[in-house]
């Protein structure tokens, strides 16, 4: 893993003037609108989510989530780039993917607090929005309609992933069957006597 140069605490500049704050909010709203889970929400609803979400700033090389840590929610990348890695039991670290602005990860963490399955690290200085389970549960009290829309969208994303995983599993099973059949045929050919 790249050497960690410096770490930045999760505080955005505290003395922003109002115009800058409005501009930043607009940027955040435009990013959120493109996230699958927030598709179809009205601008007011996106604003409500942006207001209750947490804004964090991660420096290059800084870990955002750690594999094995209890999950609290999802993250959306406003600016920057992150890499997703997974450590196997033998210590091998596998790079899974890289995400850029507009990408999101950890959405399953909104539903339960199971341990994270991968580590996500900032490749360069990044601004991230965190939307967490306590906020979602609070939203269920304060705005049940919006909360149910979010939960439904989350279910859609998970259903799509499950279908994809099933398809991949089926393909893998077919590949295995094909390989086994080919191996059987080659064994039969080898045992036939030469005439």
């Amino acid at each position: 893993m790249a050497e960690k140069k410096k770490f930045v605490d999760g505080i955005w500049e505290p003395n922003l003037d109002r115009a800058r704050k409005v501009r930043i909010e607009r940027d955040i709203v435009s990013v959120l609108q493109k996230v699958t889970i927030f598709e179809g929400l009205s601008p007011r609803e996106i604003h409500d989510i942006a207001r209750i979400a947490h804004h964090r700033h991660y420096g290059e090389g800084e870990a955002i989530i750690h594999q094995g840590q209890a999950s609290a929610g999802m993250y959306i990348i406003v600016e920057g780039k992150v890499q997703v890695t997974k450590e196997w039991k033998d210590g091998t670290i596998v790079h899974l993917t890289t995400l850029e602005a507009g990408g999101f990860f950890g959405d399953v963490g909104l539903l339960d607090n199971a341990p994270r399955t991968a580590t996500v690290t900032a490749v360069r200085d990044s601004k991230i929005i965190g939307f967490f389970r306590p906020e979602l549960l609070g939203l269920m009290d304060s705005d049940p309609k919006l909360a149910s829309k979010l939960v439904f969208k989350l279910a859609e994303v998970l259903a799509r992933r499950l279908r994809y995983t099933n398809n991949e599993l089926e393909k893998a099973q077919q590949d295995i069957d094909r390989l086994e059949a080919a191996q059987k045929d080659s064994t039969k050919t080898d045992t036939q006597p030469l005439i």
Partner: protein
Amino acid sequence: MNNPSDDSTKLHSSSDEAVNRVQPQQSSTDTPALATETITPPISNPELATPAAQTLTRESVEQTRQLRTVSAMLKLVVLGIVLGALALSIGLIYLVRDILALVLVSFLIAYILGPIVDALERRRLNRTLVVVIIMLAILCGFATFSTLAVSSVAEQVTKIHDDIRNKGTGDLIVSMVVNRLDSLPDLLLAPLLSYLKKSEESNETLQETTNPDDSPLTSKKDGVIELKLAEPTNAAAVRHEKLSRLVRLAQEQTLKYISNQSEQIVSMLSNSARGAFSAFTTGIISLFLTFFLLNDAPRLRKAFIEIVPNRFFEPMLILVNQLDQQLGSYLRSRLIQTAALSIFFALGYWILGLRFAITLGIIAGFANLIPYIGPFIGAVPALIVVFLGSHLSLGWGLLVILGLTLTAQLIDNAIIFPLIIGKSVELGPVMTIVVVLLGERFLGLVGLLMAVPIAAMLKLIFQEIYTEFRGYTRSIVHGN
């Protein structure tokens, strides 16, 4: 921008992409890199191992030993720092306990009223306006209650004070109390009579009595002070005489105490106006604190989370949420419990025909907030009311009130507690008592009531810190 559906599936399609396998870092120098405990394969028979393998095994064992030593030293250092910080914190808390109690009360009021403000804010009402209205309502209610209660209590205290000083009423009260005490068995009276004997032996009553007519032992007749030589003819009369002397002794000591206290209060108020002013400013400060805590609660919470470093951000978020749930659950359940028990006691006292049944019920309900000893403390005012004058005899009054208290405890433990409070706070009985005593010592009445939930929250915080720190020290020692 990444296609979200691709993003969501990329995590599961690593076989379709070029995968970069990253091996654990190894030092290029001759000495081996920092070893973990499993870097060398296990050797079943060391004698069969090659010299190089034996050397490597010895080095690995040595490094593992060093790692363990470093880990143990680190833990000791951390423990020392934690204990030092704890001692310092306790000292600071003790120094600023008055301010802390004020902040805690304001926080408590704000926390209880928070859900009401949130509910009204959801109906698109301005939060600040809602808070202002609620605070004004509380202020008006408090002012009304204070005016009525204080004037009523002041009137009654003045009446009691005058009655005690008035000889005729005083004699009536003494006679009534003596008759009540006379009905008690000797076993219960033994300590009181022993106290009387000691007081008389030290001659305090003779010296402090200014009017021989008031003294139980002397009387003035034709200008001559004579000893009242009581020559009782039977044991019952002897007992009655002793009880009369005891009650008169108590009356004199009470009057002397009240007189001393009044002088002290007058002296304090006349020498410095700080007393009354201090109480007023404390109330105002508490009001403003509550207002700001209520109004800015969501912002304060978010600001607190924002200052947490990234490494501890998620665990802190989970911890704060757990604390919020635990405290909220505890306060709500205790409020319901207090209300239910207050109603139960008020009904019970009303059925018994006691005066001030509602007030006594509320006192008993609130006293139940104090673990274990609270219910018995709450029964004392009712016992005093029975003692001072009720259609119930003392014995029956004691029995009935005790029965009522035990019934309330049974209902509380069997129904209310399991249903409402449950396991919201998991502290053992010994720990609970210790914590309550410490709370009372540090923060008085507020500490008495809030000690248990604060202790439970501290326990949760330390558990989370320990869990997180274990992972942190491992990463320092093993370099990952």
